[in-house]
């Protein structure tokens, strides 16, 4: 099981990780942060294969895919 770990301080909400994800796992949270960016979040992470393409295409070094056994309850990476 993988976890989509986003650093909201670095993310500018460009959405390239959403477009690049081959399994369409990453989706927009639809919520604005304090700077006015709509941040992405991990959707159904059970379908994530851990290809780390989102890490590679991120222009702002904000995305990290973490291999995690107990990731179920941590899936919501943007609590605020």
């Amino acid at each position: 099981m993988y976890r989509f770990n986003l650093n909201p301080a670095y993310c500018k909400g460009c959405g390239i990780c959403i477009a690049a994800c081959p399994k369409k796992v990453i989706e927009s949270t639809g919520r604005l942060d304090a700077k006015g960016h709509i941040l992405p979040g991990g959707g159904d992470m059970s379908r994530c294969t851990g290809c780390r393409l989102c890490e590679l295409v991120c222009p702002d070094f904000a995305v990290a895919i973490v291999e995690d056994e107990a990731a179920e309850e941590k899936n919501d990476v943007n609590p605020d």
Partner: protein
Amino acid sequence: MNEIGHPMLKYLKTEGPSGPRLPLILCPGCGAGQVLNYTLHAVDRLLAEDNLNKEDVVFISGVGCSSRLTSHYLQFDSGWTIHGRSLAIATGALLANPKLRIIVFTGDGDAAIGGNHFIHACRRNIDVTIICVNNGLYGMTGGQVAPTTDTGEKTATTPFGNVEDPFDLCKLAETAGAAYVARWSTAHPRQTVKTIIKGIRKKGTAFIEILSQCPVHKKTAPVEMFKALRRLTARVKEGAAVPDGRIAVGEFCNRDKPDWISRYQDIIDQENRHKDTECTGSI
């Protein structure tokens, strides 16, 4: 909460003397950030596989959006130098220490304004890797027309469309004599990483053009531009025709020719041998 960050953050200066340096200064969805990410992935693999040290890799850039990527953010030795003259400074760094692996970040504006340096670096076949982030306009100064802007493209200074033909930087580099020439786009991440690894390993000038998006000045969403770059490019094998209206990507030239430093070394060795025989003859 974010106990584990992006794997390439280990090569970036996250903190500076005047506070945090990240997030990057670039606009949201800028392709230059992606190119930095691809380059760091390539360098990460080279450091692991080729027995290189961090001190052996030097980044040099000029002026422009893509040139902001070096000394301000990287934990490598790097130079943020004068406009268009990054290749001249890279030549100097190489002469001082020929063992360095020099990576030059240049934008299309930087390569075109320093065009003479660019063609002569390719002609001399100096052992550097030139990574050209081509977004087709002068992004930092406000989206003006550049020598790489497509014909008919509307920019800040060509509101009715560009009347000039663009430079094909890959053909220019190949004709000028670069040993390795390739073009990819930001929408080809894995291919770009592989090509950058090949380019850094190549002895001689490696010119890698990466087509990039400028969502702010082209007034298009980053995702749309990212998808368009994949749609509008076609990978071609050598000699094959490009489908109509699409941009050829791939490896265009990979030839073995002696680089500048090794030719100098040959002359030095030859002279030394000559002197040795002279000495033994007189005795």
